[in-house]
C-alpha cells in the first residue's frame, strides 16, 4: 500500500499468531528484552523521548503518564489495557490484537516494569469476543515460556496478565467506568479525585493505556525512539494507526506517519470515493469527534494542524461520508448512538442527549421550532461543561462542528434533493421503530425500556 508504513505493525503477517516460537523467530519480545536491561527510569526516558501521546483519544504524553504512575507510592500496582474500543469507525485495536497479540502482551509487561506493577489486565470488549481464545492462548504460551509470570526471563521482575470481558457498553471505555465494570458492577463513572493512578482497580494504583499505546511502546523499545521519530512531524512524532471507513473504496486499518493530508489519506490510501459521488463530510475520532467539510481536506493529519482546524485525532477513526447522506441524517444517527450509550448517571448527559435528539428529529422532519437551534447549542454547551465524564462532554462535538461548518443544513427551506430523499426514508424508519417499541413494551417487560427507541 503506498504511503503506509510499518513500525507498530512491523510484525503483521510475519508470524503465526497462534505460535509464540514463530514470533520469537522474527525477533518477538525484543522490546521487553531490552527493557529488562534498563532501569525503570531509563525505560521511561526512552518513551518520553519518543514523544508518543496516548492513542486512546486523550493524547496525553505517555512518558509523563508512566513517570507519574511510577512515582505513586505502593507495592501492588496494576496495568490495565483498555481494549474496549467502542467509538464507531474505530477498529485498529482489533487489527493489532488479531495480527500481533504478542506485541500487546510485551507492551503491557514493559509498562508493568516501568511503573512497578505485577499484574496486568486486558479489558476486552464483548464485540471482540472472537479474539478471546487467541489472546488467552498468547498469554498462556508467553507464561509457559517465561515471557510472563514469575521471574520473567530469569530476572527479578514478575508480571502476569488476566483477560476480562466487557459486555457492550461504550461508556466503559472511560477509565474509571472500565474499572467499575472490572469490579463486577454496572458501568458508571466514578467521581475524581481520587484519581485512578492513585486509587483505581481494587483500590490499587492503576495505569490505564490503550492497545495501540502499549503496542507502540513495545515497538519503540524494540526499534528505538529515534527510529520512531524518523516518522511524523516535530510536534506529532511517529506513526499512527487509523481506521478508515465509510464511503471509500478501500476501508481498513492503516499505519501512517503523521503529517499526511486528509485528502491524501482518503484518495491514496482509501482509494477515493465511488464514481460520481462528492464528499459531504469527514468525521475524525469516532462518534465523539468533530466533523469537517471538504474545504478542510488539505489539513495535515497531525495533532497540531488538526487542532488549528478545530479537529482532533481522537481514536484515530476517519469516517468518510458522501452526498448520499445529509448532514441532518448523519447527526440523527450520531445522536441515537449517544442517547443509547449514555449511562444515565448524570443529568446533563442523560437528559441533554434526549432533548437534543428531539430537536434533531424536528430538523429531520423539516419542522424545527424557531428557537431550536439556539436551544440545541445551549444544551450542548451545558453538556460539555457539566457532564460527569468524557461521554457527555464530547457527545455534542459533531453537532457543534456541524452548526459551524454547515449552517445551511439548519436553515428551513434550504433542504436539497438529497435531504428530501433522506426525510422520506427517515419517516419510514421512525414508523417501524415506533412499531417495535410498542411490541417490546407489551410483549417483553424488559428493564431496558430504551431499546425499542433505537431499533
Amino acid at each position, binding site marked *: 500500500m503506498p504511503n503506509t508504513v510499518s513500525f507498530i505493525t512491523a510484525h503483521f503477517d510475519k508470524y503465526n499468531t497462534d505460535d509464540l516460537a514463530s514470533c520469537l523467530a522474527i525477533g518477538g519480545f525484543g522490546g521487553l528484552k531490552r527493557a529488562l536491561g534498563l532501569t525503570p527510569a531509563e525505560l521511561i526516558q526512552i518513551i518520553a523521548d519518543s514523544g508518543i501521546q496516548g492513542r486512546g483519544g486523550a493524547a496525553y504524553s505517555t512518558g509523563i503518564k508512566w513517570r507519574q504512575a511510577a512515582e505513586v507510592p505502593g507495592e501492588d500496582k496494576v496495568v490495565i489495557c483498555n481494549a474496549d474500543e467502542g467509538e464507531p*469507525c474505530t477498529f485498529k485495536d482489533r487489527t493489532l490484537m488479531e495480527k500481533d497479540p504478542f506485541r500487546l502482551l510485551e507492551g503491557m509487561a514493559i509498562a508493568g516494569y516501568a511503573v512497578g506493577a505485577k499484574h496486568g489486565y486486558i479489558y476486552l470488549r464483548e464485540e471482540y469476543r472472537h479474539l478471546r481464545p487467541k489472546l488467552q492462548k498468547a498469554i498462556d504460551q508467553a507464561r509457559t515460556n517465561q515471557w510472563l509470570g514469575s521471574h520473567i526471563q530469569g530476572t527479578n521482575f514478575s508480571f502476569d496478565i488476566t483477560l476480562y470481558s466487557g459486555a457492550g457498553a461504550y461508556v466503559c471505555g472511560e477509565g474509571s467506568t472500565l474499572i467499575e465494570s472490572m469490579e463486577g458492577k454496572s458501568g458508571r463513572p466514578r467521581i475524581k479525585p481520587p484519581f485512578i493512578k492513585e486509587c483505581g482497580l481494587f483500590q490499587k494504583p492503576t495505569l490505564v493505556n490503550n492497545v495501540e499505546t502499549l503496542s507502540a511502546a513495545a515497538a519503540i523499545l524494540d526499534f528505538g525512539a529515534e527510529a520512531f521519530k524518523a516518522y511524523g512531524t516535530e510536534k506529532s512524532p511517529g506513526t499512527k494507526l487509523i481506521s478508515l471507513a465509510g464511503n471509500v473504496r478501500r476501508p481498513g486499518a492503516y499505519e501512517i506517519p503523521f503529517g499526511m493530508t486528509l485528502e491524501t489519506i482518503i484518495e491514496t490510501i482509501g482509494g477515493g470515493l465511488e464514481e460520481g459521488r462528492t464528499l459531504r463530510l469527514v468525521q475524525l475520532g469516532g462518534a465523539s469527534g468533530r466533523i469537517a467539510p471538504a474545504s478542510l481536506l488539505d489539513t495535515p493529519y497531525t495533532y497540531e494542524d488538526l487542532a488549528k482546524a478545530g479537529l482532533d485525532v481522537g481514536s484515530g477513526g476517519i469516517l468518510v461520508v458522501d452526498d448520499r447522506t445529509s448532514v441532518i441524517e448523519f447527526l440523527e444517527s450520531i445522536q441515537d448512538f449517544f442517547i443509547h450509550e449514555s449511562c444515565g448517571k448524570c443529568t446533563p448527559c442523560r437528559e441533554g442527549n434526549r432533548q437534543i435528539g428531539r430537536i434533531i428529529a424536528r430538523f429531520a422532519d423539516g419542522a424545527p421550532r424557531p428557537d431550536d437551534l439556539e436551544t440545541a447549542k445551549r444544551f450542548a454547551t451545558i453538556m460539555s461543561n457539566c457532564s460527569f465524564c468524557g461521554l457527555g462532554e464530547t457527545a455534542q462535538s459533531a453537532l457543534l462542528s456541524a452548526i459551524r461548518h454547515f449552517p445551511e443544513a439548519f436553515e428551513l427551506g434550504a433542504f436539497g434533493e438529497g435531504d428530501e430523499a433522506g426525510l422520506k426514508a427517515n419517516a419510514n424508519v421512525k414508523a417501524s421503530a415506533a412499531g417495535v417499541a410498542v411490541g417490546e413494551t407489551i410483549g417483553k417487560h424488559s428493564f431496558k425500556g430504551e431499546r425499542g427507541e433505537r431499533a
Partner: protein
Amino acid sequence: MNAYVTNTSNTHQGSDSLYKPAHTTILTPELMVQIDSILERFAKDPTRLVGMLLDIQDITPKQYLPKEIGVYVGEKLDLPLSRVYDVISFYEALSDVPRADIVIQFCDSVVCKVVGSRRLKEALEGILDIKTGETTKDGKYHLEAAPCFGACDISPAIRVNGVVYGPLKTEEDVRDALARYEKGGGARA
C-alpha cells in the same frame, strides 16, 4: 439445590409483574452443573461477574438470563440479587428477556448507515418475516439492532451468534451469510 427448580413457578406468580410466568423451567439440574463449572473457571470471583454472566447466557436456552439464574448466581457468589440484576440490566450484551437459538444483530451505527445498513435491516426483516426486536415463531432466530461492533472495514455488517459477516450489500449477500453460518455448524464466536 432443588429449591431453585421446584420453586420457580412460585417466583413468577403474584404481584411480581416484571417476569413472565415460566411455563418451563430454564434452570435444569444439567444447566446448573454447567453454570457451576463456569463459576469455577472464574474462581467464583465476584469481580468477574460480567464475564461469567456472558458465558452463562451463551449456554442458556434462548440466550438470556432469567431471574432464576440471577438468583442462583447471586447465591453462589454471595451477591445480592439487586447487584446481579444491576449488571444484567445495564449491559447491552446481557438480555433479561428470552431471545432465540440464533441471535442476529445488524449494526445500526453511523458507519454502517452511510454505506446502506437500512437495506440490510429491510432484507433481514423480510427474510425472517419479523420486525427488529422480535423472534421468529419457531423460536430459532432473534433479530436486534446493535451499536458499532468494530467491523467498519467490512460494513454494512451483521453478527450471527457473535460471528461477523460483511460487507452485505444485497439480500442475496444476507442469505448467503446466514447459509454460511448454518454450514459452519452454528458455532459461537
